[in-house]
């Protein structure tokens, strides 16, 4: 099994709303270290998505497009999409063309934050999560793959990908 040794850190049913535990810790520490990068912003899952922006305001789709194409965000390593300027695209994951038709912004946001909620065996990383990981490299420990603002920018861009 590809999932041998893989234990999803959370198994909350999608139908139930839940509040991220780390967010509560973050909130309790907010006074002590207001701008700490070591804590995740709080978010609330409703149904199969996160309806409210992680940053409290919508992202910038132009910045989001640049982020999707930057190899450091890892999107383009696995996904392809309507990006004629780059030939270095992956085919491990669905083409992003029409992503805005297939999913609501609320669903896109949850997919980026923690795709394992949809499928515990997915190879898509949880871009806004820190717990339940093994041997994280020194340079990457204690931070999510993407910041809340980066996720909002990417969500804003993906929502524009409509057929």
């Amino acid at each position: 099994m590809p999932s041998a040794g893989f234990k999803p850190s959370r198994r909350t049913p999608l139908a139930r709303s839940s509040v991220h535990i780390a967010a509560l810790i973050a909130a309790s520490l907010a006074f002590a270290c207001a701008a700490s990068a070591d804590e995740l912003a709080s978010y609330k899952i409703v149904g199969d998505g996160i309806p409210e922006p992680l940053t409290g305001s919508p992202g910038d789709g132009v910045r989001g497009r640049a982020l999707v194409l930057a190899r450091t965000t890892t999107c383009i390593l696995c996904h392809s999409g309507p990006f004629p300027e780059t030939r270095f695209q992956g085919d491990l994951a669905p083409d992003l063309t029409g992503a805005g038709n297939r999913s609501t912004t609320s669903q896109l946001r949850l997919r980026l934050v923690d795709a394992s909620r949809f499928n515990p065996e997915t190879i898509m990383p949880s871009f806004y999560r820190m717990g339940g990981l093994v041997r994280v490299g020194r340079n990457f420990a204690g931070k999510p793959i993407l910041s809340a603002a980066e996720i909002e920018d990417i969500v804003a861009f993906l929502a524009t990908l409509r057929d």
Partner: protein
Amino acid sequence: MIFWRAIAAATLFATTPALLAGEIPPDARRSGYAFMGPDTQAMQDDDTINPGMLFVLDGEALWGRKSGSANKACADCHGDARSSMKGVAARYPAFDKASGRPVTLDQRINLCRANHQQATPLPYESRDLLALSAFVAHQSRGVAITAGDDPQLKPFIEQGRDLFMQREGQLNLACTNCHDDNFNKRLAGAPITQGQPTGYPLYRLEWQTLGSLERRLRSCMSGVRAQAYDYGSPELVALELYLMSRARGLPMETPAVRP
């Protein structure tokens, strides 16, 4: 129809008990050679342009050169490597009685240096160690891999398999996610191989030099943003052993060339 298919599937499953779900069956195993372009294949095939052959020639010179306070050369004990080393690399990593653990070919070379030549160990990825191991492994070119057949290695192969299946790093990916489940697909435009270690040490065009399997494993670990294991660590040796046993039957290619 479905009934007969189920029977056939059950029979197939019953005849391959050693194979776990998700693992690649023997007749579907393919070297990284099969995944690369004709230009790179031609570079590997022609010894006069294969850059790995320069290391093999260096290794041949080192094989005959006296070293250490014992003032002995490899050849003084092992004679002509063409016969004495034929097939050896296809059985490595091998069980070392003294330590009760598997050792890699690089580690065996350094054990020989310490015990028989009274020489200092060669550092991992140093030109001399790569050259010697390339020269020794080259004597097995074309020989089918049988590493891991020694029953004493069983627990170490299992440790290696567990590590191969273990998700790790900030990207939370296991080796198996790409190299068992998604070979033939493309990661950022480059083909994903099965990760069969048939040609190490090998010349990687990206590195512009020869490198070991451990170097390759460490670079995959960095790729998933995991803390890479140290050279020679029990984990890397176990992974190397599992990968070699997983490539059972494929012919050795040292020195291979890869993109």
